[in-house]
């Protein structure tokens, strides 16, 4: 069999690839408490996704100069409230920032 890998930094690549989710699916935990937390995680992940999309859209509009100062101020206030509410909800369900993600398998992580 041919030699398959050519590099002088194998350990560095190995460490970096550990950060990338594996292909083999993880087991689903169907314990009742986990189901509730799992559902909260799913819902909060989707809210976080929408929040980030809205922020990105706002930034693009700011870049393009299509937002008035008043609109920027209102959006900022709304995003502050959203951020605070998300922090509260994460505390309630014992979730960390890095847990709010969904593994889409071959497509990688949602966020």
């Amino acid at each position, binding site marked *: 069999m041919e030699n398959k890998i050519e590099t002088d930094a194998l350990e560095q690549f190995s460490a970096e690839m550990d*950060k990338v989710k594996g292909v083999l699916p993880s087991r689903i935990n169907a314990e009742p408490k986990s189901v509730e937390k799992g559902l909260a995680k799913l819902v909060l992940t989707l809210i976080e996704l929408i929040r980030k999309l809205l922020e990105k859209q*706002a930034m693009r509009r700011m870049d393009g100069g299509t937002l008035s100062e008043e609109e920027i101020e209102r959006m*900022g206030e709304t995003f502050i409230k959203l951020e605070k509410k998300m922090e509260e909800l994460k505390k309630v369900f014992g979730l960390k920032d890095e847990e709010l993600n969904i593994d889409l398998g071959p497509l990688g992580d949602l966020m």
Partner: protein
Amino acid sequence: MSVYNLPYRALGIVVSDIAGEKVRATEKRVLEHERVNERLMESWTVLPCRFNTLFKDKERLLVAVGGRYAELQTDLNRLQGKREYGLKVLWPGKAIREKIEENCTEKNKGACPVSGNSSGKRFMQRLYRRYRIDKAFSAEAARQIEYIDGFFTDCVVTKKLEKLRTENLLLSAYYLVKKEKEEELKAAFARLRSRAKGFKCLLSGPWPPYNFIQNAGLLG
């Protein structure tokens, strides 16, 4: 576990029989599955199936293959004589981002399109600064990827590029290469390594064409 060929018209379907309904996915078994694909690749064009692609019996398998025979033949004809190589490139992502942040602070103090001290505006200013940094970081990554990919343009049939799977993993590339061009690819990789200072590069392969099968949905 032994494997054997199940011929179907002009195709060979390499299978093994299992007891029970499923095989537990362990590292050892997945690697064995991979080794079979690689061994076959030495002599034939392979369309690899995912680990745990299972059928209740041979008859059902043959019906499934028969139903997609034309698509499978198309894939095999397209991939004949070609193998896949993987390229990964690490760059100092954190240091590059820090440099961009420094430039953003010094040169672009007036660049934010909103001024003011209210809480909403300050939040948006912070968000905008982060957005500008992310945008510059992404643009720098795209520029470097274009430079790196340029080394391989002449020796690949087609490619798939993934940018920034992590902050430090600049590029994960998958190249489909004709067998007669493989030495050229390896020479291009050697040139890249000698010129891309500050980056770490990894070339792997040859592999079966996992990322270039268009009709992968047939068998799971």
